[in-house]
């Protein structure tokens, strides 16, 4: 079978790539446009052009004189031709990029053959916060880059007097003038549009076709919310190739992977648990976010450790210039943050926190709930500008989810479950030379899942005593990472680095405590299994420009996992190729080998996450994948369109091999894990178009997703639980002004696969005249009455999941800094009872009944957000 998959992969490249490379859509400049006026200022015509065509125009006010009166002939013409008329007399030309039209100075002469390096840092004016992913672009050469996670950019340009344009969504673009020769360092502050007069300027798309999708707070603001907060994980769920697990949860399933195959990085520190409130929201606090980079296919070589996706979350650093803050209060949780300079322009801080507060409110209503649940998290960050070239960062995050079930029958029984996350980081970011950037990071991450049951123990006299059962699972990891970015010339940008990590795993521990708190372990010294592992990885990649149209990025990631019992190595080549037949279109292909040493055994079915991270051992091999994808991105009839096909093959996926929980097994947890093979393939389509204040977008995924284990389902392949054939997301935003915006989203997911027995038959023990302890009678379909016979795994389908979410934001500004936003909306507007789990039981007529349980219907939200 692997040979067949390799052939399929090869076919993708041989057949689809050439076909796609020939495909070219309509360019924005070639669209037909009939002006609604014949006389007016340049700005009037720009406004009319945007209104009629929905096209985005980007320009710097220092380049274009928008107040100049112009007159154009009547009739319909190409947008490009009309712009020439409108801009006649100005040394400006229109170029198309990412579906938008850039108005840039006309080409200037270059000094052939001699290049210099232009570096710098882009920040937000007023706060000093660095801008991640801002576009830095030489319009004459149609050559550019984006700022990295420290706001730094490097650009190799020919010598000569040049201009470079800088733009970032939600900020006023600007232009830099470069001297005729020599390496140049230029730092620049861009002004946020919320602090200046209302100007409508669009930026180019911030995603790299086929490689990365970037979400910023501005993107999150225009999405439907849950619990009154814009959750970045829900922003990812509406991307092609991504689906949620159980409806309503914030987890993501990427191209057939499981949740444990997603690498979550918070400022570079791996997170092992990213859910709050049992998956209704994530640990990422929107107040503390700067950007989220999402990778699902062409993985850069600097990433490793998971096989399905990378979710790289960049937190804000805190304002270097002024004290500010804000807060949000919703129906079930509240959050607040404070930021500002400790030493102006030198040292800043940011502290944010969230907490749910239903547990404090419910008692006031006298609601006799047998459960108590809450979560909280705290983000803290300090940022020190040592000098122009050196910065230091310190970050800290801690969060907890808590759930407690209490007996309602008056007994002392309770069950308590906690999920704890703590991470910390220290980072040094340095510009060693105009060509060389350094990033050094030390990280610490700790995850603990623990469950405690209080039980009553009986003895023959009828007396009772209390005891406790405590199970826990934890990971503690510390890592050092060094990363260099070197720009030796115009056509190369090399990144290389090394990462060393040491991790302590305790997949499960189990203790029993007597009532006085002393440990009463029945097995001496064998109740826990601890593993210590060392992980080392090195990587290198080179982003190579071949002429004006080709970009090639070969890379290699080499990882080794070592412990006393085993050594695993993984050589992971990466390749990304992009071809731009015209500036507005890109055809690309990628191949990536990924590997992961950790495995997540996760329960996504009940909505109560029981996550067990288990390491590879001498018996459990790492998961390793090959993934290939080809795609095309461009503009079709004023819409940004992307098409991509992929094939992914993962060896070493894991599953439970018995019907018991991992916590039932402290000593032999490895015996309960089955390793097998998974593969998925599919096609993805995305489109987005602006119609003035309206923005419509869609994402569709057609996919197949399989698993095969030697000891499950008789060794036959079977559909993965999240083998959902169709996944469609539609979104419509309306933002007539910065004071109001609204969004409606509709999603459709084919039903997930699940296993039903094909036959029931009477129970063995019953027919040996043996009943369970304390039982003297039989009842149909209780666990002792029937035995289930399973013929095939995941052979049945739940009903399709679909729902409509809607929300709106009312924002008021007062002065430059004060902002207040009311957010109102509803999750699952038409109350679709999407099934989260099922139960086979007997109905009142004595027949078999399959009951589907649903949550989250008609869930409204309202929140008030204040920023100052």
């Amino acid at each position, binding site marked *: 079978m692997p040979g067949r998959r390799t052939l399929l992969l090869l076919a993708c490249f041989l057949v689809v790539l050439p076909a796609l490379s020939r495909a070219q859509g309509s360019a924005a400049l070639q669209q037909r446009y009939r002006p609604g006026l014949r006389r007016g200022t340049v700005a009037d015509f720009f406004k009319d052009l945007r209104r009629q065509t929905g096209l985005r125009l980007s320009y710097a006010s220092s380049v274009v004189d928008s107040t100049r009166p112009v007159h154009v002939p009547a009739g319909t013409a190409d947008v490009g031709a009309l712009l020439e008329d409108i801009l006649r007399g100005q040394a400006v030309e229109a170029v198309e990029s990412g579906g938008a039209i850039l108005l840039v100075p006309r080409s200037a002469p270059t000094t052939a053959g001699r290049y210099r390096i232009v570096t710098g840092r882009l920040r937000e004016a007023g706060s000093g916060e660095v801008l991640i992913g801002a576009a830095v672009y030489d319009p004459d050469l149609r050559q550019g880059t984006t700022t990295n996670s420290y706001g730094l950019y490097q650009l190799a340009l020919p010598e000569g007097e040049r201009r470079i344009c800088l733009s970032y969504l939600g900020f006023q673009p600007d232009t830099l003038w470069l001297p005729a020769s020599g390496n140049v360092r230029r730092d620049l502050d861009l002004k946020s549009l919320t602090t200046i007069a209302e100007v409508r300027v669009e930026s180019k798309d911030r995603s790299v076709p086929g490689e990365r999708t970037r979400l910023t707070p501005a993107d999150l603001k225009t999405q439907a919310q849950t619990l009154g907060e814009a959750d970045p994980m829900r922003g990812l769920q509406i991307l092609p190739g991504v689906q949620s697990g159980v409806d309503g949860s914030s987890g993501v399933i990427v191209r057939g992977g499981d949740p444990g195959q997603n690498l979550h990085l918070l400022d570079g520190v791996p997170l092992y648990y990213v859910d709050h409130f049992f998956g209704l929201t994530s640990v990422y606090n929107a107040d503390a976010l700067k950007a989220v980079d999402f990778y699902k296919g062409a993985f850069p070589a600097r990433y490793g450790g998971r096989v399905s996706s990378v979710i790289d979350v960049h937190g804000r650093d805190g304002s270097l210039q002024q004290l500010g803050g804000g807060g949000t209060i919703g*129906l079930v949780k509240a959050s607040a943050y404070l930021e500002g300079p400790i030493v102006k322009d030198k040292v800043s801080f940011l502290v944010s926190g969230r907490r749910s507060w*239903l547990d404090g409110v419910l008692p006031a*209503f006298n*609601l006799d709930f047998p459960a108590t649940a809450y979560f909280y998290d705290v983000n803290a960050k300090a940022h020190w500008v040592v000098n122009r070239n050196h910065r230091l960062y310190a970050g800290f995050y801690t969060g907890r989810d808590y759930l407690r079930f209490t007996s309602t029958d008056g007994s002392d029984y309770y069950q308590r479950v906690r999920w704890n996350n703590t991470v910390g980081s220290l980072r040094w970011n340095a510009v060693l030379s105009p060509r060389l950037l350094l990033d050094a990071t030390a990280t610490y991450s700790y995850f603990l899942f623990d469950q405690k049951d209080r*039980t009553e123990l*009986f003895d*023959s006299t009828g007396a009772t005593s209390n*005891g406790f059962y405590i199970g826990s699972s934890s990971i503690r990891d510390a890592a050092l990472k060094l990363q260099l970015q070197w720009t030796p010339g115009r056509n190369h940008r090399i990144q290389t680095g090394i990462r060393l990590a040491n991790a302590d795993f305790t997949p499960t521990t189990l203790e029993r405590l007597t009532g006085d708190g002393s440990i*009463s372990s029945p*097995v001496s010294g*064998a109740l826990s299994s601890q593993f210590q592992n060392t992980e080392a990885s090195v990587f290198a990649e080179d982003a190579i420009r071949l002429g004006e149209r080709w970009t090639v990025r070969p890379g290699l990631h080499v990882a080794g996992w070592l412990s006393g019992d085993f050594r695993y190595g993984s050589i992971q080549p990466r390749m990304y190729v992009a071809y731009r037949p015209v500036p507005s279109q890109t055809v690309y292909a990628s191949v990536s080998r990924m590997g992961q040493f950790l495995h997540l055994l996760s*329960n996504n*079915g009940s909505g109560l996450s029981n996550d067990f991270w288990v390491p590879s051992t001498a018996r459990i091999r790492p998961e390793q994948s090959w993934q290939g994808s080809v795609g095309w991105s461009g503009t079709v009839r004023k819409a940004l369109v992307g098409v991509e096909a992929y094939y992914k093959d993962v060896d070493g996926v894991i599953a439970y*091999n*018995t*019907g*018991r929980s991992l916590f039932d*097994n402290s*000593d*032999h947890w490895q*015996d309960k894990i089955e390793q097998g093979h998974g593969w998925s393939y599919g096609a993805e389509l995305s489109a987005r178009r602006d119609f003035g204040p309206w923005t419509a977008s869609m994402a569709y995924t057609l996919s197949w997703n399989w698993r095969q284990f030697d000891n499950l*389902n008789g060794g036959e392949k079977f559909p993965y639980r999240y083998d959902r054939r169709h996944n469609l997301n539609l979104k419509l935003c309306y933002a007539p002004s910065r004071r109001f915006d609204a969004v409606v989203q509709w999603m459709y997911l084919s039903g997930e696969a699940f*296993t*039903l027995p*094909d*036959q029931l*038959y*009477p129970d*063995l*023990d019953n*027919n*040996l*005249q*043996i*009943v*369970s*302890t*304390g039982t*003297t*009678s*039989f009842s149909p379909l209780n666990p002792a009455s*029937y*035995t289930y016979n399973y013929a095939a*795994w995941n052979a049945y389908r739940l009903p399709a999941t679909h729902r409509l979410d809607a929300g709106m934001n009312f924002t008021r500004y007062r002065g430059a800094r004060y902002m207040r936003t009311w957010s109102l909306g509803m999750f699952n507007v038409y109350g679709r*009872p999407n*099934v*989260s*789990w099922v*139960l*086979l039981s*007997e*109905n009142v*007529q004595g*027949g*078999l009944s*399959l*009951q*589907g349980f*649903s949550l989250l219907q008609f*869930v409204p939200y309202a929140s008030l957000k204040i920023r100052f």
Partner: protein
Amino acid sequence: MRNPVAGVVVASLVLGGCTKELPLPSLDGEKRIVLLGELVAGDTVSLRGSVSLPVSKGTSLQSEVPGDLALVMTSPTEPPLLLAAGEPDFSLKTVPLSAPQPVGAGSVYTLRASSSGLRDATATVRIPQPFEMTVVDTATVRYGGTRALRMTIRIHDRPGEKNFYTFEAVRQLLDVKGRFEWQGLPYTLPDNPDDLALYDSLRNAGVSVHVDYDTMPQPGAYLQRLNTYTDDGATENVKISSAVSPVRRVLLTDESFDGGTHDLRVYVDKTYFVMNETNDLPGQVLKGRILFWVKSVSEDYFRYLRGYETFAPITGIGTLAQPVRIEGNINGGYGAVGGVYRIPFYYVFDRWSY
């Protein structure tokens, strides 16, 4: 509730859920014959038969037990034997099938079951050879917070063959009758109040009274399984579960001690080593005892029991656990008939003196 409106709002926010009936697949699944039970060396033949229920739209759990189920048992040394079918038991959904002939250790039996409208089902059952065991020691200990009877059972394995052992503990409720003689006349305890009064007066007078006890299993009172634990690393239970997980049967192969001896350590929960009239059979004065069974079982039955031990009915449906496919030894049907050589021993709890 002080503020019901607000409470409803909050509850709807928190829960907002419901259940709904989902359609079951219309599979028109084929019903199959089910055979269950053990052929125990030295015992008479006693099995159970039934029919499976396809999981399909319209399947009723109140279906009838097949009245015409016929089971023929043959062995190389004996003529075919048609087992007698008893009255169907609708609570168990099976029909008893029995024969007075004893089952022979080391014998191989072939079973063929038939019923109108169903395909025939067959099974081959190999009865294990005799083996020996001794109880090395017993003690009452605290095991994981539970008072337990610890036993070390030494199994003497037969060399040169693969053997499979199980251990299980059940409580048996008994009607215990005491009989004594006084001055040549018989008296019965405890049913006759006059006899009981005489007995008490004799005891109070310091007279030594010899009482003989008769025990009678209660009709309709089933054996009650007792939670058992083992921390023996050679057992299958520790491999598939843990030392502190209660099990129905302790499962052991002779893989590590073929032909030798093995000391199997088990712990039996003593919580129910007491008569509790309120919870057990109200109104009846019953005593009881614990039956311990050490069995050598056929390989395919052992495999079935291993799946049965890990079986959880809702596996595969909305849980993280994989479904467990329990492989039986009934060709063309479902269930299992085990070949068993059984060594029982007893533990008597409560005083039987009156």
